[in-house]
């Protein structure tokens, strides 16, 4: 079996070799103002190393999704800074940020969020097409990743023709196929049944161990917490606990 790790080429920039993948400095995100001010995240200082399998946990409204959005460059912080692969994402222009997300970050969403008019294969290929990867290389990677996530034979099906578990596998494949530095996953198992959720988590854990890919989850799911090497607990927008496990 060909794995993604075998296909993966080393990145030229120094950041690829750096141990720190994510660094947040006094990160704050506030919504509204005056009486309606909501402090979704307050003074978050975090460092995440390459190859970590990290879970951000906390009750609803504790700021997990906000933290993931800020790390992924999907939202702008009220104050503070985010460094991804040693690059200040708050200083990037819109297009630079788009390219950065395309090349360095993989997203997995709770609601799968596949493009409904594209087939499973095309959804997986999408980012590579934006990157301008050759047809031959795309075909090779798609075959490999579809095998890895157990979607062989379903290449031409549209999302509506796939089960929830299969859609989430496509989402995982899409996030990983472009070989990003980090994968941000927001409650990836929330809409899946227990068995499918475990299968997917085991698959992601294997990819993490085999390819040293960094995973950051926002979750309530005990199954993710069991597998995480590090658990960051948020309460009311503040990091209250940061536990590393062997």
């Amino acid at each position, binding site marked *: 079996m060909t794995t993604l790790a075998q296909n993966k080429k080393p990145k030229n920039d120094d950041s690829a070799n750096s141990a720190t993948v994510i660094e947040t400095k006094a990160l704050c995100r506030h919504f509204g103002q005056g009486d309606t001010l909501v402090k979704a995240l307050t003074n978050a200082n975090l460092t995440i190393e390459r190859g970590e399998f990290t879970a951000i946990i906390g009750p609803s409204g504790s700021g997990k*999704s906000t933290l*993931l*959005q800020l790390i*992924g460059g*999907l*939202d702008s912080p009220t104050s503070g800074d985010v460094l991804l692969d040693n690059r200040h994402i708050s200083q990037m222009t*819109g*297009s630079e940020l*788009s*390219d950065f*997300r*395309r*090349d360095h970050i993989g*997203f997995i*969403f*709770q*609601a799968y*969020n596949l*493009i*409904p*008019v*594209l087939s499973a294969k*095309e959804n997986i*290929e*999408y*980012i590579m*097409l*934006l*990157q*301008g*990867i*050759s047809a031959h290389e795309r075909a090779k990677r798609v075959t490999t990743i579809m095998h890895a996530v157990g979607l062989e034979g379903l290449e031409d099906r549209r999302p509506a023709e796939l089960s929830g578990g299969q859609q989430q596998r496509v989402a995982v494949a*899409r996030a990983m196929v472009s070989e990003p530095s980090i994968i941000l996953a*927001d409650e990836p198992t929330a809409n899946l049944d227990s068995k499918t959720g475990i299968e997917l988590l085991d698959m992601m854990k294997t990819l993490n161990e085999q390819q040293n890919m960094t995973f950051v989850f926002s979750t309530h799911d005990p199954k993710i917490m069991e597998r995480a090497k590090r658990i960051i607990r948020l309460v009311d927008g503040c990091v209250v606990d940061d536990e590393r496990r062997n």
Partner: protein
Amino acid sequence: MTNNNASHNENTATAIVTRLAKRSIFRNTRRTLLTVLLISCSLVAILFTDAFVRGMVSTMVKISTQTFLGEAQIHHQGFRATNDIDLYIENTRNVYAKIADTETIKAYAPRVISGAMTSSSDNVASAIIYGVDGHKEAKVSKLKQAMVEGDYLSGKESEILLGQRLAELLEVSLGDRLVVTVSQAHGGDLSQALFRVSGLFSFNERNMDNGMAFINLSQAQQLLNISGVHEIALRLQNLQQADDKSLPLWQTFNTETLETLSWQELVPQLSSMLAMTEYSTLVVSIILYVLVCLGLINTMFMSIFERQTEFGILLAIGTRPKQLFIQILLEGFFIGLLSVTLGLLLAYIVCYWGANVGIDYTDLEMTGMTLNEPIYLIVDITSFIKMALATLLVTVLACLYPAAHAARLQPSFAMRKTL
């Protein structure tokens, strides 16, 4: 090498953006079809209006020039302004010789014109008496075709043709006697002559049928005591020559004594009306394009709001705002392409029917002119192409605002229901 890579990246990105745009327009088939129908019907309306206006202009010009006016007329300087019967063209042989030498003139009809009092045994009416050469007049005007009763002018003494309504007014019929009284040239002495009604005509034009009478040219000259003619109506080789002031015709027959005018100058009110009708196509087009724009903007916004989360995802996974902008514009372009294809097909069917069957406006009067034949639509291919391209452009332009809105979306806001 780097440039090649960048170009390859752009190509593959453009390919996927185009594929997304194509497939997205059929996501809500009913809405897309309704939008396509709205745009194509608007295009059909614009093209129909354009073809109709062209047909109407052509019909009106044809009616105006071919019925009696001719494409141009020669008068003595000042005659048209004063209607003074003393201002007639004297040296007609010379003028006729020049006309014969002018290639652009296909036929001509000399006319003597005078206001007259016509009296029957029962009634009296004023009329314009035209003295014409029956043979030459038949080559320029439709007087011969307009005959509804009796015989056309044969050149015999005392023949008179009356408008059908004038005959009704005078209560005369074929063979009845009629006295014509005119004021002679060179002094204004009254002159009378007795005529027998030899024929009745109807141009389907109220003013002409109410107030015109035709007698033979020589008798008219005798009656008015003149040796020349007041008017020479010209039939040109084609209508467009009336617009071409560079032709030698205009120099030859515009002299110190002669004034030659085209049909546009002879009936300026018709010319102005025709210019105005051409604006009507523009006005209809603008109104319909505004409606198309508003309809399309509404459709695209509905589509964008429905797909807001999806756009958030596309932006989150690395689609550039510019690429999303292009995707929406391409969706508009494809909708426009479908609409234009359907619109052209429908417009062709409608205009083909209108060009062959015609639209019957018979007896409708416009600017004193009665439409006495159907209006046949005239399809102008250049106009079809221009309007089709304009529609395509309008659909793309209408998508600029929705596309800019989509491109400005912040991924976190667009996806707030999910991430």
